[in-house]
């Protein structure tokens, strides 16, 4: 009985925390000023949001094949996320995009004002 309660509380905490991180990452994707900072924002949701959510599902699933599948999914996401981000950043740099820096003389005041899409 107490174990069930503990499992439910842990599941709520982990899945709720993961949901918060996923939404924060998506908000950052919209709010950040240039490509590189947007990548930084999505890496939060890619590693921590998915990690917490899948951990919560593992707690709910108990010890079974489902947990093994979730573990594989988690490991796969954690290995491929940085690889994709690295490839994207490299391609963006080679395509000639420059990161926005705060003390760039062409950007006055608020960094977000420098780029209006």
């Amino acid at each position, binding site marked *: 009985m107490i174990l069930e309660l503990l499992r*439910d509380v842990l*599941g*709520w905490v982990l*899945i*709720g925390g*993961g*949901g*918060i991180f*996923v*939404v924060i*990452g*998506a*908000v950052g*994707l*919209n709010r950040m000023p240039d*490509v590189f900072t*947007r*990548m930084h924002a*999505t890496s939060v*949701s*890619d590693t921590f*949001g*998915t990690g917490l*959510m*899948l951990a*919560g*599902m593992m707690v*709910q*699933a108990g010890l079974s094949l*489902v947990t093994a*599948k*979730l573990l*594989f*999914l988690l490991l*796969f*996401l954690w290995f*491929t*996320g940085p*690889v*994709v981000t690295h*490839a*994207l950043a490299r*391609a*963006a740099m*080679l*395509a000639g*995009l420059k990161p926005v820096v705060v003390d760039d003389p062409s950007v006055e005041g608020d960094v977000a004002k420098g*780029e209006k*899409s």
Partner: protein
Amino acid sequence: MFFAGLLAVLVALGLAVARALRGPTTFDRLIAANSIGTGAILLLALFGFLTERPEFLDIALAYALLNLVGTFAVLKFFRYGALGHEGIDEEEENA
């Protein structure tokens, strides 16, 4: 709890779609596409748990593999203009 997680992932997916439609460069759209893919994986897993059919996890795994390959394919296509290019670039050799 799975429904709460599902709602959070759906909100995140909506925001990522907004960035994909708005994004000024190709790379912005690609970042958004990659994050949509991650969101879809989470959505599939959560939906499987919500309907008590965890077999959806197999689809989620397949989607994770496709997401990686798809992003690299699009990156390569926009870099070289063809997927069959050997990948040797003059800029890189000189650098």
